[in-house]
């Protein structure tokens, strides 16, 4: 198995093509990982929604977070992953929210109306490819 780095452009394309990622935050001094449904707005912002006042909302106020998207074979021996490190902040009921609302699927009645944006600071990605020996089951 070998790793190849993705270019920044390739990483951005992967982000734009997918809709489920995982965010890592610190909640009350402990790490946490939460899967989220997301959309891109512009080139550099990831948006998702969560419950106002919930753990994820509290952990994403002007805070550095990691965000990851991947597509990996079940055994992990092929696929790709993209890692973003960025600053998360809450969006209010502005035009930005209305613009992205249609793209970040909603849950009527569930009250998940806190929009959170992650401004991408660093983005890296890699492709995992099986080597011949891996294919041979070594």
């Amino acid at each position, binding site marked *: 198995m*070998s790793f190849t780095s993705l270019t920044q452009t390739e990483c951005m394309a992967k982000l734009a093509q997918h809709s489920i990622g*995982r965010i890592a935050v610190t909640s009350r001094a402990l*790490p946490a990982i939460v899967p989220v449904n997301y959309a891109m707005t512009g080139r550099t912002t990831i948006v998702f929604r969560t419950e106002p006042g919930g753990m994820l909302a509290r952990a994403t106020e002007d805070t550095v977070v*990691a965000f990851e998207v991947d597509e990996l074979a079940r055994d992990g021996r092929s696929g790709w992953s993209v890692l973003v*490190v960025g600053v998360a902040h809450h969006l209010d009921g502005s035009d930005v929210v209305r613009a992205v609302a249609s793209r970040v699927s909603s849950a009527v009645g569930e009250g998940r109306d806190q929009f959170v944006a992650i401004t991408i600071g660093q983005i890296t990605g890699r492709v995992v490819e099986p080597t011949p020996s891996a294919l041979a089951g070594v």
Partner: protein
Amino acid sequence: MLGGMPSIAQFVPRFFASAIVNAGRAVLEETERWEQRDRLAPGARADGPGQAIDAIAPDECWELLAGAEIGRLSFGVHGGLPVIVPVNFTVDGETIVFRTGRGPKLTAASRREIVAFEADAIDVESRTGWSVVVIGQARVVTSETERRRLDALGLRPWVAGPRDEYVVITPRNVAGRLVHASQDL
């Protein structure tokens, strides 16, 4: 770094200052919260902000973990920035085991950091599935006896090499939840 963006570095001191100040009390509060969550019956809903979840019982969490091969590990790297990396793992008793060579994962484990580990299976179309998060202390396996025992688990390393080490995460908290489309993830 993309051009024209605010530097992450300027946010880091504030991030860590507040985290350290609140650490002692916060760990206790969080533990209580997770314990409450663990007591929920499968499918039960907790009330209150941030707790509208469908909890999965701990036993079922371990069954789900045992059936998965890929998880995501989150920890802080040098400089304090968080990362998430996929790992292939196995369950050994009620611990998470993976292999890694020299690098950030091994460094974090050798420092016995508290890490988060998550595995999930989510259908993209229906946005339904499950997610289990383990929070625990990582450590590098140094005992030859333990290494030999773990060898028998048949865990395949990402990249084979003589420096592959075993890392074990001993959980402090295990929490799982069902993901429904109606919850909008």
